[in-house]
């Protein structure tokens, strides 16, 4: 049986803040998560949900208050476990006095790339993220998008089987976002397991196999993206013509929503009600110009999960 790249069991983290460390903020509570090889796994949540804390525990940047984190079956403190991981933090800040090539070469040395291959491999990955021409410029002269590209290059220069990205598209322009998305898709094609956290929902929908929604340090949803979206599509959406709102409401069906769109009506109701309503509308002389499942987006799921968990408040829980 293959060891999962990431296993988290009962993971919790409480930060102690203030001069006397007397204020406590719970950033993560009892998180369980298993990421299988080859998956692209998204951690979705608002600011302060615990996404970055989770990643930092996995990368040994922060120590868990309780619970266990495993990287390929080993502790994140084990340097050999971290050798199999490429990590790109949120708003990466590489050494700005180095050139892009020097920084990626430093990462290659630390990642254990054979000495003879360091130069060649560094240039290859820089080329692959579109930084070949700017490789010998100092990083202080780079734009945010270029820094993100170099950060991605240093993350994969040692060809890790697991890639962890913290808010990889945050603050990027559409071109930069597209580049990062293509980069993740390319890594998936190569069989790399990818964990990334974001609050940009379309990125999760476009890239992830599985997703976990974190709110207030707790996991409130988890599953395959397709399953979560299917499970959340109980409604049908109909566009009706030739009947007034009062006539439609008078048909006696339970309708979730009726909107008047000039001469048409947009009606949302459950699937069972829609079948009956369809027959009644036709019988009453109306027309049905469209009938389709109401699109339940990940955004709807996310907002629903948030409102269930904490009524829209953001940030870690202050104890």
């Amino acid at each position, binding site marked *: 049986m293959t060891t999962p790249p990431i296993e988290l069991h009962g993971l919790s983290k409480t930060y102690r803040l203030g001069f006397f460390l007397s204020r406590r903020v719970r950033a993560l509570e009892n998180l369980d998560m298993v990421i299988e090889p080859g998956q692209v796994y998204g951690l979705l949540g608002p600011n302060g949900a615990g996404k970055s804390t989770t990643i930092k525990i996995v990368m040994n940047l922060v120590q868990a208050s309780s619970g266990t984190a495993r990287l390929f079956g080993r502790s994140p403190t084990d340097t050999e476990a*971290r050798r199999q991981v490429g990590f790109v*933090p949120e708003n990466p*800040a590489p050494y700005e006095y180095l050139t892009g090539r020097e920084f990626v070469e430093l990462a290659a040395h*630390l990642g254990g790339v054979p000495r003879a291959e360091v130069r060649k491999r560094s240039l290859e990955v820089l080329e692959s993220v579109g930084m070949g021409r700017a490789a010998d410029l100092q990083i202080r002269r780079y734009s945010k998008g270029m820094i993100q590209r170099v950060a991605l290059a240093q993350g994969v220069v040692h060809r890790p089987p697991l890639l962890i990205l913290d808010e990889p598209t945050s603050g990027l322009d559409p071109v930069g976002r597209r580049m990062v998305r293509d980069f993740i898709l390319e890594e998936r094609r190569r069989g790399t397991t990818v964990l990334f956290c974001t609050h940009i929902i379309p990125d999760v929908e476009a890239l992830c196999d599985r997703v976990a929604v974190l709110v207030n340090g707790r996991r409130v949803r988890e599953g395959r993206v397709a399953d979560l979206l299917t499970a959340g599509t109980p409604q049908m959406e109909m566009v009706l013509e030739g009947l007034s709102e009062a006539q439609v409401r008078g048909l006696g069906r339970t309708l979730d929503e009726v909107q008047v769109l000039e001469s048409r009506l947009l009606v949302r109701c459950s699937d069972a009600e829609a079948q009956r309503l369809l027959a009644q509308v036709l019988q009453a002389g109306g027309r049905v110009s469209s009938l389709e499942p109401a699109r339940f987006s990940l955004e709807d799921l996310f907002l629903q999960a948030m409102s269930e968990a904490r009524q829209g408040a953001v940030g870690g829980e202050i104890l």
Partner: protein
Amino acid sequence: MIRSFLAIAYNGFREARRNRVTLVLAFFAGLLLLSSSLITDITVATFDRVLIDIGLGGMGIILVLLAVFLSTGLLSREIERRTIFMVVSKPVSRALFLVARLAGNMLTLTILQVLMGALLLLEFWVLRTPVTWPTVLAMGMLWFELLLLSSVGFLMSSFTGQMTSAFVTVSMFFVGHLSGDIYTFAQRSKNEALRALGKTLYYLLPNLERLNLRGPASYGIVVPAREWLVSGLYAVAYSAVLTCLAVFTFRRRDFR
């Protein structure tokens, strides 16, 4: 492991080399050493002594300032800017990272000290001032002082910010040169507790004065080998203890 150590240490040196403040200080060092030759124009009988005094003193001040700046500034900045995320998340232990960073700092200081020393000796040669063993020894012992101060800076940077680290390190420089006086004054007190406190502080604080051989150098006094060897070992041991404490703290630190 050795390769990672060398890569991080060399990167630290490269950082300092490309840092403009380092260049400014190096330039200042050259300027100060040259100005010492102008000052000696107004001296007659004590020409050589003043030259050695100013040369070694200037070198000491500049390198101590640089040691404080490098040891407290670069690591703190790396943590504050979160650059450290991309290094300590690599297959590198935090202990190795910290020690390699310290080694990089010492490499920078050593190279600058060698260059400044060469500049000073060149000046001696030009002005026909004899180069004596006490002068060379005083330059060498300065390296141990820089090592000790850098270790203080790294210990502080391992758990606190740049300003606090710099303040404590500079304070430690002054206190370290006065620890003998603290002991002497305390022993003169009639209060037993004060005497005990003075003694404790004397043994606890670094005694930087025993690494300061600039006085004997300017008078051409030869310090016995046993004395400076023990002083050098003392500085290395003290630095090792501080570095172990820094590693202990750094390993437990959360990088938020």
